[in-house]
């Protein structure tokens, strides 16, 4: 058995696929840690090669619909167990079949990818909804999130399209990195600070007012006669409350 260790990028995973076919590996597993836990296995470090990756990508795109390819790509960010392995099983099926296999949803290999992609899409959608910017004194709109999946790369375009005329920073506190938009483009910023807690002095003068205003609004659109906490929690699970302005206490 061969254990393939990639560098944690999608291109790295694509390169690994190239190697599998080039060296005709049959029995492979993926490891993100770099060292295999399996004592009967040899570990092979995969060096990401953009040319190889591009060729595999092209092959996949030829055999999948745009949506099918995207599902595979999204799965990469799902952080489900053995994501790279599951994606490999799917890709193997794609390359082995003469026809497009993505409709074969009763096949676990296909269904697992579909499900993971669905989860990533839902989480991306949630982040588009749940990001709450706070304006700092130096006029940067700043938000902290802790999504279930690693979705910042997937939502960057949504935010740069929408908020094209304001500088913003979205920080993933779980994965300790953020994306920053400087009015021209979005870049990844690595930082490890424990939230911009700082105190009142870092926020814009009107920031607190708008947060309070939003809270008051959120409170007054509720219809008490229709109270339905189960539905409320289903749509706004508690784990997200920490970063939602309307759920903050003591503003």
């Amino acid at each position, binding site marked *: 058995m061969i254990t393939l260790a990639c560098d944690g990028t999608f291109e790295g995973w694509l390169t690994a696929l190239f190697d599998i076919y080039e060296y005709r590996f049959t029995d492979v597993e993926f490891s993100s840690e770099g060292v295999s836990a399996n004592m009967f296995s040899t570990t092979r470090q995969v060096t990401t090669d953009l040319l190889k990756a591009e060729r595999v990508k092209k092959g996949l795109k030829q055999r999948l619909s745009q949506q099918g390819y995207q599902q595979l790509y999204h799965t990469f960010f799902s952080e489900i167990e053995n994501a790279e392995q599951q994606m490999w099983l799917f890709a193997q099926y794609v390359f082995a079949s003469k026809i497009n296999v993505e409709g074969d949803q009763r096949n676990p290999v296909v269904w697992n990818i579909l499900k993971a992609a669905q989860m990533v899409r839902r989480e991306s959608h949630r982040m588009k909804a749940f990001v709450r910017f706070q304006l700092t004194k130096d006029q940067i709109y700043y938000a902290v999130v802790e999504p279930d999946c690693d979705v910042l790369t997937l939502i960057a375009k949504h935010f740069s399209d*929408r908020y*094209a005329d304001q500088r913003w920073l979205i920080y993933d506190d779980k994965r300790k990195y953020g994306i920053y938009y400087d009015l021209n483009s979005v870049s990844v910023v690595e930082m490890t600070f424990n939230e911009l807690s700082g105190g009142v002095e870092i926020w814009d003068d*009107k920031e607190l007012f708008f947060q309070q205003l939003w809270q*008051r*609004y959120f409170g*007054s659109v509720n219809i008490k006669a229709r109270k339905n906490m189960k*539905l409320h929690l289903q749509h706004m699970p508690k784990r997200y409350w920490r970063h939602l302005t309307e759920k903050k206490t003591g503003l």
Partner: protein
Amino acid sequence: MLLSERVMEKLEILADAAKYDVSCASGQSKRENKNKGIGNSSGFGICHAYTEDGRCVSLLKILLTNHCIFDCAYCVSRKSNDIKRAAFTVEEVVDITISFYRRNYIEGLFLSSGIFSNPDYTMERLVRIAKKLRKEENFNGYIHLKAIPGASDELIREAGLYADRLSVNVEMPTEQSLKLLAPDKNHQDVIRPMTFLKEEIAGRKEEKKIIKKAPLFAPAGQSTQMVIGATKETDLEILAMTDYFYGKMNLRRVCYSGYVPISTDNRLPALGTPVPIIRENRLYQADWLLRFYGFKVNELVGWDQPDLDLDIDPKLAWALRNPEQFPVDINTADLEMIKRIPGVGVKSAQRIVQSRRYRRLKPEHLQTMGIAYNRAKYFLAFSTPFSLHKDLTQEQIKQQILKLQQSKYEKNFSSQITLF
């Protein structure tokens, strides 16, 4: 700088007065962010928050003012109601919208208003706000404006140039109810602007096909709302109106708002009467069946049975009334018939049709494909297991399915009007 305390109080009053309008849709429009402005509408709605009643908050939904010259019994803002009144200035609405939008609290603005002095005066203010947002703030987020019944065609046309969606609320499903509860209004006031908008929207669409650069005109179309349970209409009457709105008026959405008792007026259900949440839900389900599942109104309700069942959903009810249509063989049936199987949604139906090309589907496959199998199984024909169910009567199937679902609303199985 806003005068903060007063603005907060106004927002509370004017959001509270607007909240009974249930529409909160922000999808269905596509507006790009031009020239590095602020905002866009991406064609799918984003619900930024949910209130404790489980409803989505996607738009800043407010009235410009709750001063009103009308006295409609079902409305909180009616003239004779003794409540706090307030009015926003144009600048305040624009400032709050932009500030909320920039913080990613909302998708845009849903602006309605009580009618002060006269319809044109009111409409002109609404249009002025939308115009300022689009022209001065370069705002491309979602804007939903109320078309005030009785406002001039010119103003409504101008509103369409700035708004993504316009709506006129019919409020009461029938003319008699409207006469009873809103003596100052008549159905024609509502139908007239609706017809005008329908033609305007259709005309502009044609124009846009020829001239690419023609301006957008209410790209998300128009919608309306009916209050449910305040008056004695049957679901048949309500759904007939719905059908008319979708079929003849090309409306994008019809919303149903279960009446929340807000008045001691004896023409209306008493204070404390439960909101007919289940009935409202059944109407939405029926609405979906009409729009996405190919059902006709007369398949769901009829003269012999003018109301939807409250204890089971309308699709299941239809299936139980039409046993001769089942069992369905999902390996051969066409998509339209598969969509009609209880427990199978549009997406699942498409999945079934897609995946059966690869292999014959068996019951265990359905369970992993996101289908409510425990519900669907009574209506499916598989070579082997169907014999298990085929001897059950319709009533037995209904009871077995009912046992599966435990509704927290059971106590609310009332259509409200029966309670007084």
